[in-house]
């Protein structure tokens, strides 16, 4: 009786949410279902469930689009950028947090200010800088651009965390004779782990998803990433939607899986970025 009444009362809420969720999930379903249809079936049956589901698209896309190397390239670029930028941003956050007075907060402001700058605006002079350093068509240039773009958010997240580290810990470590960098590696860096996880989840996904930097800064086809690879693949296989969607699924699956397992870090990271 009681549960029935509860159910009846929450039914309208669920009904509205289910309708809205159906609209939200529809494009994702289309993405997945289309990838399981042969190119001919897509044309005959674009909306329904696949009548003869096939993984053939994944095979042909993977082979013809050379997705193995693309996948490795995306992974390598993302990992290298994240590892280096985590260390660089954490060190900078440590420096500004431990520096008392104006100098520390001035540098903090300077570094964190980058969060709200959309880099498309500066991509032409950025291109010029990368080219004058001889780094066009090299991963070093792309990684450098990614790191510099990721530093502001990293410094912001990690500095916020490091400021919470109790003074007593620092004083105790000082008495034990811990030096400046020793204290960073032994205390500040490990204690910032939640901030670092949030940073990895948010920045890692945004680097994995980025297409503009590799699109403009890399010309060698063997250096393409998943995003630019799929862009070129689409130009080649114009209306082979089954194959194109297979590529889209291959590119999206890792981030969607990460999202499922790390949802709360996404949520806290998005919120932190919004209320900077």
């Amino acid at each position, binding site marked *: 009786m009681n549960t029935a009444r509860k159910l009846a009362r929450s039914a309208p809420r669920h009904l509205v949410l289910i309708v809205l969720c159906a609209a*939200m999930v529809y494009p994702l379903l289309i993405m997945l279902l289309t990838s399981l249809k042969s190119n001919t079936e897509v044309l005959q049956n674009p*909306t329904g469930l696949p009548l003869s589901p096939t993984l053939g698209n994944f095979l042909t896309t993977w082979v013809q689009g050379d997705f193995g190397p693309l996948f490795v390239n995306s992974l390598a670029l993302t990992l290298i950028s994240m590892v280096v930028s985590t260390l660089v941003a954490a060190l900078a956050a440590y420096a500004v947090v431990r520096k008392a007075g104006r100098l520390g*907060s001035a540098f903090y402001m300077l570094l964190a200010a980058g969060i*709200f700058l959309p880099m*498309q605006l500066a991509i032409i*002079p950025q291109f010029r800088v990368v080219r004058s350093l001889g780094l066009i068509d090299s991963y070093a240039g792309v990684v450098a*651009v990614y790191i510099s773009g990721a530093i502001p958010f990293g410094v912001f997240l990690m500095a916020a965390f490091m400021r919470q580290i109790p003074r007593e810990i620092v004083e105790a470590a000082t008495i034990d004779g811990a030096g400046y*960098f020793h204290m960073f590696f032994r205390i500040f860096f490990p204690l910032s782990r939640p901030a670092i996880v949030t940073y990895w989840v948010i920045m890692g996904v945004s680097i994995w998803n980025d297409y503009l930097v590799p699109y403009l800064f890399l010309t060698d086809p063997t250096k393409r990433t998943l995003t630019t690879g799929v862009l070129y693949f689409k130009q080649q296989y114009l209306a082979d939607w089954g194959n194109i969607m297979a590529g889209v699924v291959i590119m999206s699956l890792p981030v969607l899986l990460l999202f499922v397992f790390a949802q709360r870090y996404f949520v806290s990271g998005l919120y932190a970025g919004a*209320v900077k």
Partner: protein
Amino acid sequence: MAVQTPSRPSVSIRAGAGGRPARRGARSQFWIALAPALLLYGVFTLWPIIEVVLASVTDARDLTGESSFVGVDNFMRMFTDDPDLLNATVNTGIYAFFRIVVQTVLAFGIAVLLNKKMALGNVYRAIFFAPIVISPVAIVFTWSFMFDPTSGTINTTLRDLGLGSLAQDWLGDFDLALYSVILVDIWSSIGFSIVIFMAGLSTIPAEVTEAARVDGANAWHTLRHITIPLMRPTTALVLVLAVNGALRAFDTVYLMTKGGPGGATELYMTRVFDEGFAYNHFGYASSMAVVVIVALVGVAYLQNRFDSQVGKGR
């Protein structure tokens, strides 16, 4: 700024061993820790931005060539004599209106519905948030397929339902294309607004709404007289973020419509990009960029003011 941990103690302890050199050591350690970030950020972010500002008062034509000082000519032209930019700005205004009004109202409603412990709550949340993590490339290709006028899922579904007369050329129709772009971007970013609203809602103590209910207020009254007023700072923040998102909007247009048909979906940011990259008018593109940077600084200032209010609310 709460916990300032001065490096003094370490200095004083080492100072016993050697006085001034240790102090200098502590200072250089600060710079050593900061140097990699400053170097990378300085070369690849700050310097390009400075170059944009410097170029905004020149007639720089391409990536390397000569340029001469033209004062505020670029800005004068932007505001008085650039129909393409005017078109892009008007489109950005329409785009912003929908992102601000429709997305905010929808997101608020969804956040209120989700703000309750219930069966499937996690599933609903995951579905609303999931599009945030998907690459613009994936989003655009999926929607391009859905919008396809002949074999796309939207038109096919309409025809199957006997509503074939409603089938449209979603991206090719001059009057419709901008709204199709807006739909895609609301779909992909509404989860972000919901996240912010839900964080705001979680700060409203359950006792407050409970007390209202005890006093006989129905759900609508509670929402109208308690939740909405208490959510004012959060709403302001979401609105500011929507303005920010509208000023930055770029990917969907760049990848899906290229500003077409006939400039119908050209936005401010894609205009800046084309002016610089496609037409090589670096000086003029820089002036446009400077204007939007100023606008973004203004938005960031507002955002900070609302943040402190949200903070006080907690």
